[in-house]
Structure formats: structure tokens, C-alpha cells
């Protein structure tokens, strides 16, 4: 056992040296955990922001003017008044996300309680904005209509009041979400590529064969790679969390820092092990690249981060359960936003460790198999 620890330690030191001599790799790590996070956090807006809206106003009344004025920043850009004939062409080139059409004598019909129709054309190709934007517009129009009617002495109120309260991120600030999302994405891409490529490189240079002749076990070699690269990424992730997310972006992150480190460690263990596994399945660097791309893009886009698991078809939900990223998203969202404690997030941590162990065991088995192939 002591031997095992010593071997892994020295092999891991060797990994760190290799990485140190590769400036391009170091640059990419720094970029992925700093500039990439800042860019995505400050620019990716999944909520309704700067939505472009045009209004075809055939009424030109006080009410329609009032409604038009209600579309304000940051949710909407200032509405543009357009003629009906321009609408189709403008939508085709993606100039407007939403077009409102007020019919003639709209105000008068509202006052008479005739429930006039408002046309709302939504560019559905921008899925993210379309649905939520519709709800925003509806609620803005309702409020304005109610205020207008009230000012005319007509009672117009819903019989109940709904008081939405958003937990963990009361002002729905996208930055909080997207910064962590990119952090997770960077961890996934780098951990798989870094470790996997390290294995292939050792294989193409014949050094791994040399190691296997020494009194070192395959598991020790694999584990050293997991630990060394995992440690580098852990430090990078932690620095990114403290310096970029908390300090520079000012995201108020909830939950215990120690627990975040612990969970990230486990996640890195599982993804780096997966990286080794993919590398043992590939015969050359180009093959590895082509195998790794589907693996990490799936882990990024279907982790439940951007689109929650429950919205996916059941089969896919099941399939995605072999991806450690699903559990890391559960863990990190619970911890970082909801301030969950270990008693609430132990399950994803346990499953991630299990998956990691499974990947590593299979990768170790593939190691020798890989070397005994004729090449």
C-alpha cells in the first residue's frame, strides 16, 4: 500500500513536469477558466434581455402609446413603430423578435369591455426568448391595461394576486447562472482532453510501454494521471471560482467552500478517468479527437445544466445517468445557489465517485489490452 502511494506520487510529479513544459496547454487552461468564464457570464443572457420589438399601431390612442412606452430596458429595446407591410420582411431577416399589432379603435373597444384582439407575432426560431418574452409582454400589457382602466375609474383586477418569489437568485441574474455553467463546461472539456491526450502521447512516444516494464502497475500510472491533471484543474477551478466568479463577477455564491472543493475533486476524478478510458479506446490522436468531441459535447449540453433532465425523453434521461456531469450539475446547483449542505447532496457525490471508480477500473483493464495490440 505504501509502495502504491509512493509510486503514484512520483508518477504524478512527472505528469506535472510534462504539463509545465507545454506553454500552449497552460495558456488554454488559463483561458478556459478566466476569459471564457467572464465572456460567457457577462454576455450570455438566457433571460429576456434586449428583446427587439416592433409595434404596428393602427389605433394611435393614449392606451397604445402607454403600452408602447411600457417596454423598457433592460428587458426590451425601445419599440419601433412599423407599417404592417414591413413586418414580414423584417421578421425574415431577424430584425425583430416580437411584433405587436393593435387594431383600429383598440382603446375604445377596451373601454367598452369588448376584449379587442392584439396580434402578437413571435419569432419562434429564437426559442429561448420566444416563450418567456410572450409571458413578459402579456404581463406588461395586462398591467398597463389595468392601470389605464383604473385611472378611468373602471375596476379591472384579477380576483387573486400572485406573488412570485424566486429563491436563490431573487433578481434572476443570468450572470450567476452562466458563470457557473461555463466553469463546469471548462472542467468537462479540459479534464477529458488533457488526460486522454496525455495517455495517447505517452503511447505514441513509447514511454508508457517503458513504464509498464518497471515495477509499476497500470492502475498506478492511470491514477497518477488522474491525480496530477485533476489537481491542476482543481486549482484552476478553485482560482476561477474565487477570483473570477466571486470577486470579478461578484456572484454571491452560497454553500460551503470546502464542500465545493470536495465535490469538484470527486467530479474531476470521474471525468479524468473517463478521459483515460476514451484514450484507451482510440488508436491514434486523430481518432481520440473524434471520439472525445461527442463525449464532451454531450456532457456539456445534456448535463441538465442548460436544459433540465426532466424535459428530456425518458430514454435519454436514463442514458445520461452514466454521465458524471449530470450529478455534478445537481451537486453544484444545490450547493452554489441553494446553499445545500452535505446531507442534501451526498447522493450525487456518491454516484460520481462510483462512476469514476468504474471508468478507472475499465480503463486500467484496457491499458494492457491496448499495448498488446499489434501496431
Amino acid at each position, binding site marked *: 500500500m505504501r509502495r502504491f502511494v509512493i509510486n503514484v506520487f*512520483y508518477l504524478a510529479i512527472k505528469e506535472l513536469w*510534462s504539463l509545465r513544459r507545454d506553454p500552449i496547454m497552460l495558456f*488554454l487552461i488559463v483561458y478556459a477558466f478566466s476569459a*471564457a468564464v467572464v*465572456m460567457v457570464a*457577462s*454576455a*450570455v*443572457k438566457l433571460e429576456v434581455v*434586449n*428583446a*427587439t420589438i416592433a409595434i404596428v399601431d393602427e389605433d394611435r390612442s393614449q392606451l397604445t402609446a402607454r403600452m408602447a412606452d411600457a417596454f423598457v430596458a433592460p428587458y426590451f429595446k425601445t419599440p419601433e413603430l412599423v407599417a404592417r407591410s414591413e413586418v414580414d420582411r423584417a421578421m*425574415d431577416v431577424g430584425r425583430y*423578435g416580437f411584433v405587436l399589432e393593435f387594431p383600429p379603435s383598440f382603446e375604445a373597444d377596451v373601454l367598452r*369591455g369588448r*376584449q379587442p*384582439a392584439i*396580434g402578437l407575432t413571435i419569432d419562434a426560431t*429564437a426559442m429561448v*426568448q420566444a*416563450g*418567456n418574452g410572450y409571458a413578459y409582454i*402579456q404581463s406588461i400589457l395586462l398591467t398597463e391595461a389595468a392601470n389605464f382602466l383604473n385611472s378611468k375609474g373602471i375596476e379591472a383586477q384579477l380576483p*387573486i*394576486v400572485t*406573488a*412570485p*418569489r*424566486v429563491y*436563490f*437568485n431573487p433578481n434572476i441574474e443570468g450572470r*450567476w*447562472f452562466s458563470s457557473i455553467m461555463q466553469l463546469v463546461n471548462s472542467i468537462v472539456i479540459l479534464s477529458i482532453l488533457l488526460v486522454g491526450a496525455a495517455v495517447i502521447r505517452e503511447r505514441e512516444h513509447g*514511454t508508457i510501454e*517503458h513504464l509498464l*516494464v518497471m515495477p509499476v*502497475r497500470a492502475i498506478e500510472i492511470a491514477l497518477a494521471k488522474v491525480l496530477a491533471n485533476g489537481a491542476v484543474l482543481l486549482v484552476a477551478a478553485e482560482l476561477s471560482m474565487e477570483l473570477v466568479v466571486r470577486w470579478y463577477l461578484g456572484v454571491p455564491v452560497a454553500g460551503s467552500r470546502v464542500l465545493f472543493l470536495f465535490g469538484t475533486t470527486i467530479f474531476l476524478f470521474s471525468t479524468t478517468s473517463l478521459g483515460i478510458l476514451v484514450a484507451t479506446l482510440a488508436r491514434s*490522436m*486523430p*481518432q481520440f479527437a473524434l*471520439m472525445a*468531441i*461527442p463525449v464532451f*459535447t*454531450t456532457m*456539456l*449540453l445534456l448535463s441538465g*445544466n442548460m*436544459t*433540465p433532465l*426532466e*424535459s428530456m425523453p425518458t430514454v*435519454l434521461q436514463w442514458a445520461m445517468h452514466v454521465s458524471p456531469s449530470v450529478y455534478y450539475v445537481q451537486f453544484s446547483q*444545490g450547493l452554489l*445557489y*441553494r*446553499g*445545500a449542505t452535505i446531507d*442534501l447532496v451526498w447522493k450525487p457525490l456518491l454516484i460520481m465517485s462510483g462512476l469514476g471508480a468504474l471508468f478507472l477500473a475499465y480503463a486500467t483493464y484496457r491499458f*494492457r489490452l491496448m499495448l498488446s495490440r499489434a501496431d
Partner: protein
Amino acid sequence: MRTPANDRPDEAKSADAPVIATGVGHRYGSTVALDDVSLNFAGGASVAIIGPDGVGKSTLLGLLTGVRRLQRGEISVFGGSMRERRRRDDVAPRLAYMPQGLGRNLYPTLTVAENVDFHARLFGLAASERAARLDRLLTATGLDPFRQRRAGQLSGGMKQKLSLCCALVHDPDLLVLDEPTTGVDPLSRRQFWDLIDSIRRQRAGMTVIIATAYMDEAARFDRVIALDDGRVIADGPLADILAKTGEATLEDAYRRLGSRDGETVAPAFVMPARKPEPGNWAISAAGLTRRFGDFTAVDHVSFQIEKGEIFGFLGSNGCGKTTTMKMLTGLLPATEGSAELLGSAVDAGDISVRLRVGYVSQSFSLYDELTVRANLMLHARLYRLPAADVAPRVDESLKRFDLVSHADSLPSALPLGIRQRLQLAAACLHRPEVLILDEPTSGVDPQARDDFWRHLAGLSRNDGVTIFVSTHFMNEAERCDRISLMHQGRVLAVGAPAELVRQAGAANLEAVFISNLEAAEAASRDTKGPVTAPQPDTAAPSSTPPSSKPHRRWNHFATASMIWTFARREGVEILRDPVRMSFAVLGSLLLLVLFGYGISFDVKNLPYAVFDRDQSIESGQLIDAFSGSSYFDAQAPIRDEQEVDRRLASGELRLVVSIPPGYGADLLKGARPEVAILIDGANTFRAETVKAYVQGVVLTYVAQLSHDRYGPGVSVTLPFDLRPRYAYNQAFVSVDAITPGVIMLLLILIPSAMTAVGVAREREIGSITNFSASPASVVDFMIGKQLPYVAVGVASYLTLFAFARLFFGVPFAGSFPALSVGVLLYLLAATGFGLLVSTLVKTQVAAIMAAAILCVVPTVNFSGFINPMSSMDGVARWVGLLFPASWFQTIAIGSFAKGVGALDLIRSDLALAGFAVVFIGAACLLLDKQEA
């Protein structure tokens, strides 16, 4: 290889010397490789360059052929200066260069015929000429029966013959071979030089310059140039050099030349005798067999090696020596038979035996990124030396193997001989009882090889270490206590070298070796069908005198055909790699399915719970409004206040509807009760969607209320009727909206990574030299590299498009030709980006990482894939606009959903074309045709 006396270098006038080097100097960083070298090479001369490793032999040859960039001095070849690109490209068709290393100018996945054909096309030969020369060369080298075999499956000797065919295919006037027979067995070596001789006989005008580590090879040449420390230390016919040094053989003369003035010359090494101890076996193998598929690499091999004995392993290339050694080390399991090492059966899992064995593999297999000392330290620790012993033992080893002055250098900066010494030092560090050395001296110069063998002798004779070593050098084999001859997986003969020579009645060991191999080949030919023997006399590449060749035509031959040459080769390579092809096309398809189904922005089955503190009929109605919706999935109701926070924090619930006490009564009174809607805000986008859906459910509920109370048609609550129309996607189906984006994502990620690795790989493997030595331009090479990946991208696009239409039923409103034009431009930009990345990095690893990481962020985030471009501003907008993805997204969405015509896409098309031009242009500017 003697040629008439008028070709003597000393008589060669500069005027008629086709190759003139004056004052050539070359440095790598602070290391001087060549120092003021001036040489003339006469037309039709044959010249051998000898010298220890790292004295600048390869550098000189690289400079002569224009593969390396000239730093100082002047080199003129056939009247053209190698300094000027245009002149260099002009004379390139008259030069041929075969780089160092087995089959370095070959492509392993291409067949023998395809490799030669590629080189022929590279020099613009017409189809009929290509076929004729291919036949002639393959017949001459005896490779004809193996036309359809892939180069990667050839033995080392055959690889070198094929390399030579490739070099000769365009009828060069100057043939430059850099250590062409390193790592090649004696029989193949002899065949190789016979081939060169016969070619020279046919084409007297051809100048041949070679570098070699074999002195017997150098002796075949008219003129021998000895280099040391970047300078010429001897130059002239062999006889002159021998006379000058007063030695009998070139090997001895070389040894004398290598010594500094005043130094006593170390005599050729003679192995001290050893007393045999039969029965005391260190290694014994019985019926050892290894098969790879239906190929038997090692066929029932048996031998026994005494403790302290030096046992040599000789054999043709690919005869199974390495495989046997790997089985003995436990790296490879044996298919049949058994092997014992130091009394215990070889077992891959047995660590204790490994502690007693040292291994040096064929190629350098220590870490290039660790210093010499760090490599040894790592070995010491992994071989479990006590902590206190590590440093002293490493120091001792540095001293013993003369590595002290190199202790802090990186191995990559050291000459081959020293690197091999380092490998031996590492293998001996833990004082093993058995050393297994796989061609440890391949490519090492004679002096360094002698040093190496002195160390081996010390280990065997003084320390009693058993040494099992394979080699291609006969003088090394003669030093072994016993040797074994191996061929095609079988042992042909075992015995003491002198004994074998005596038994065979041969002149020397080489003769024994060759006769044994020839006998075995003849036997296998009888059983395995005809194998045409080399026919050296038909080896004439051309009977026309070289001077009459119309060289000028190279200047103007079509760029298109050159691009096609590169594209064709790359294409064949991709087609031969089913894993890559299937991942590129089917992998994309799989991802389309996954993302098409998986990425969805609808709220479905959202887990929520109700905290009903009223328990009235009215509250029940409100709850029904939620549970009746397919968007929400009810969980167990909440009982107390703490449960709200806990269940939200655990992520179990995304929404809690909290109904206050007295809700029903207040509603009936018209007192507007307040319902709290608590939403999990972890995913902000999701939180907004939930908010919107709740609003919808509440409005429906309110409408229902007023309907129940006031009857149909009357609404006191909603002053207007908002009628949404989802343009381009009436049903608001996620898959329809996502598919164009997924196609956008896949058509950049995969082609760019494939292309990036493509170029970086050629550089790492070294086959890029073919391009450097050819008259092709950087643009030809780059575009040729790129096109096959564009083709893979198009195949992938057609598959994705068909699938999206047929299986997903995604509506397509636009024009297919317009979309296809956009795709083509997009793929050119994507692969152009890959090319650019590949020129900026050195290794394949970095190429993959850079391509993937740099692509993912702008494609996923700033392209309009998830969030629309119109809502982006500042940095995000610029990042989006400065990357091709966003422009193609406009085309894809416009074509699929909006039915936008070709005219409206022109702006995006132009932008994509601009990206392609800029990326490819930058890549071409950055790629250097010559090495430093």
C-alpha cells in the same frame, strides 16, 4: 560504386559542380551544428558523409536539399541558390531527399503503389509516365508482389526500399539519403546498396550523397567526408584517408579522426572472455508463440540464456525479435508456450521479477520533458531504491555512464548516442540481474557504440548481469557469447558466433546470417508462392541523359493538379480509417439525435408541490388548475414552513405554490387573496419560464372562475385578448428550432478539429518533409489538406439534413441549393480555422485542445444557437460576429424555418467566404515550408 577518376572531388571545378556549398553555418539556439563548411560535389559523384551523432550530418543534407532554411553562407544547387524560394522550387524537381528514420517519407495507411504514385504526382508526372515508372521501380526493388500491401505493414528493409522508390520516381539528378539503412537488417542492407549501385550504373550523371553510421557502407563510395563538431575533418577518396591516418580500415581511421590532437586513440573494443556456466539459466523460453489475428509474429521459439551471459538476437526486420522481448518482459502475454525469468514464470502481474530486470526499448522511451537527472531520479524511485540511496546512486550512475555534463539537459537536446547511454543508465540504475536491450545501438555512431559495449562488458563480466540484446551490427553480434538467428518468427540457429561461422564454413558472421536468411526465404517462397527476387539490372529509372530533361515545365504546371495530389492522399488516408470516418459522419448523426431530442426549452414534468394552508374548495380548484397541466408534475404536498425551504434547497422541487389560510373566503369576498409562487432560481432561464407558465395557468384559472361566476362570454378581468402567433414554428416544437443550430455546431467542431490534427500530425510524424522537398507551394499543400475534410463535412451535412427532414420531420422552407452554398463556405471557414490552429501549435495534443476549446465557447454561446444574436451586445456581439458560427446560424435558421431565399443570405455568404480566405491566408503565411 566506383566511378571514373574524372569524378574525383579534388579535380571537380566549381563551374561544373552541380552542388556548391560555401561558408555554410547553422545553429539551433546556442548550439552550433555547422561551422563554416565549404564543399563542392561533382556531377555523378558518390559521396558518403560520416561522423558521430549530432555533428551536423542531417543538418547539412537538409540544407543541401532546401528542406532546412539556410542561415549563413551560400548553397547553390544546379546553379540555383537555395536561399531564394523561387530558385529552390525551380530545382526541387531535380532533387530527391530521403529523410532519416524508417519510412519517414511514407504514409503507413497507403499501399506500396499508392505511396509511389503520390510522390510521382507530387512532381507532376503524367499518368502514363507514373504507371511506367511505378512498374519499373517496383520490379527493380522486388516490391512488385506487395503492390497492394500497406506501407505500415512492411518490414524495415522493405520500407527503406519503398522510400527509395518514392525518392527516385521523378528521376532526380541529385539523390540525398540520410542514414537510409539505420535499423535495417544486413541482408536488406546489402540488397539496398546493390540497388543503388545498379541505379547509378544506369544513370551515371546522378550525384548521390548519403550520411551513414556504417563504415563498411561509407567504404563503397568514391569520396568520404568526415564531419566533427560542425566542421569537415577529412575529405577525399577512401584510400587517401586511410593513407593519411595510417589505419587499415575506415572504422579505425574514423576512430583516429574523432580523437583530439595528442589524445591516445582508444583501440577497437575487444570483449573479454567469459567462462560458460551451462545449466545456470537466467532466461529460458520454451515454445514461445505469439499471434496477432492470423499473423504469427513469433512461432515456437525456444532458447536458454546463462546467468551473466551476453546473448545476441539477430534477425531480419519484423522477424519477431521485439515481440519475443516484449513477451519476456511481460508486456505482451504469450499466445502459447512458456518463459521463465530468474527461475519464475513470466507473469505480467508479478512485480518482484520486474525489480530484477532492466529494459531498453527500440526507440527512446524516457521522458523528453524531464532532464537527464530527473529521468534517473524517477527511475530510482519507481524501482524502490531506499530514499537515502537515490541521490548517491543517481550520481554514481551519471559518472559511470559519462552523463555528468548532460545531467541538467533535456534528452531531446542530446545526440542519439548519449540518449541511448541514458536509457542504459536508467535500465541499470536498480542493479538488475537481467538486462533486455532491444536494438539499443541502432543509428548510433561507431565510437558511441564501442562505448556502449564497454559498459555492457563491465556489467556482464564484473557484475554478472545477464544481457539479452538484439542488434543489426555484425561486429556487435561477434562480441556476444552466443547468438540466435531469427527469421519470420522462427529461430534458425543458436550458438557462439565463431562456432556458427565455423559450422557454416563461411567467411564471417554476416555471410552466415545472409545465407541462413536466403535459405529460409527460398524455403518460404516454395511454400508461399512466387516472390520475385530483386532484379537490380532492370533498375534503370530512365535511360535518357538527365541534362536533356525539360525541367522548366515544373514552373508552370497547374496548381490544381498539385492540390489534387495532396487532397487525394489525405482522402485515401481518411477512407482507410473507418473509426475516423464513422465518428465524423455517424457520430454527428448520433449527436443530432441526442441534441434534437435532448435540448428542449419547454417546461415538461416540472416537479412542484403545493403548500395548502386553506384546504377549502376554492384552494382545491386552484390546485386542480396546476395538476391538470402537463407542464407540472405534482409531488407530495408540503406540510410545514421548514419543508418549503428544505425541499427547494435539495433540488427536489422547482416550484412551490403556497396558498394562504382563508384563501377561499377571501376570494369569495373579493378581497384578492395573495398566492405565493416560490420558484427555484438556480437556473435563471428556467425560473423565468416557470414564472411565465404559472402566469398562464393562473390566467386560465381566473378565466374559468369568471366563466363559472358570470357565465360564458363575459370577462371582467381580461381587458383584451392577446393572440400569439409563433412565426416559423407554429407548434413551437423544440426539435425544429434546435436542429439548424445543432447542424451549425457539428459542422464546425468536428471538421476544424479533424483538420487541425491533420497538419499537426504530419509535422509530428515527419512526413511533412515530402512537401518541403517538393516543388509544391504552401497554398497547394494547405488547400489539398483541407479539401478532404470539407468533403467529409459535406457527407456529414447531407446525412444530417436527410435525417432531420425524414426522421425528425423538421420543416424546410428555404432553398436547398442556397443552404448548400452556405454549408460549403462554412466548411471552408471551419477547416480553414483548423489549418490556422495547426500552424500555431507544435503537437497534435495542442491542436486538438486549441481547436476544441477555442471553438466551443463562441459556437455554443455567441452564435445565436441558444440565445439570439439580436439580444447580444458589447463583447459578446463582437465575439459572435468575429467567428463564422453566427453567420452560418443565420443561414441555417433562415433556410430551415424562415424560407429566406438565396439573395437574403448573400451577406452571410460573403462573411463566411471572408473568414475562409482570412483563415487560410493566415495559415499559409504562418506555415513555413522549410525547417529552421
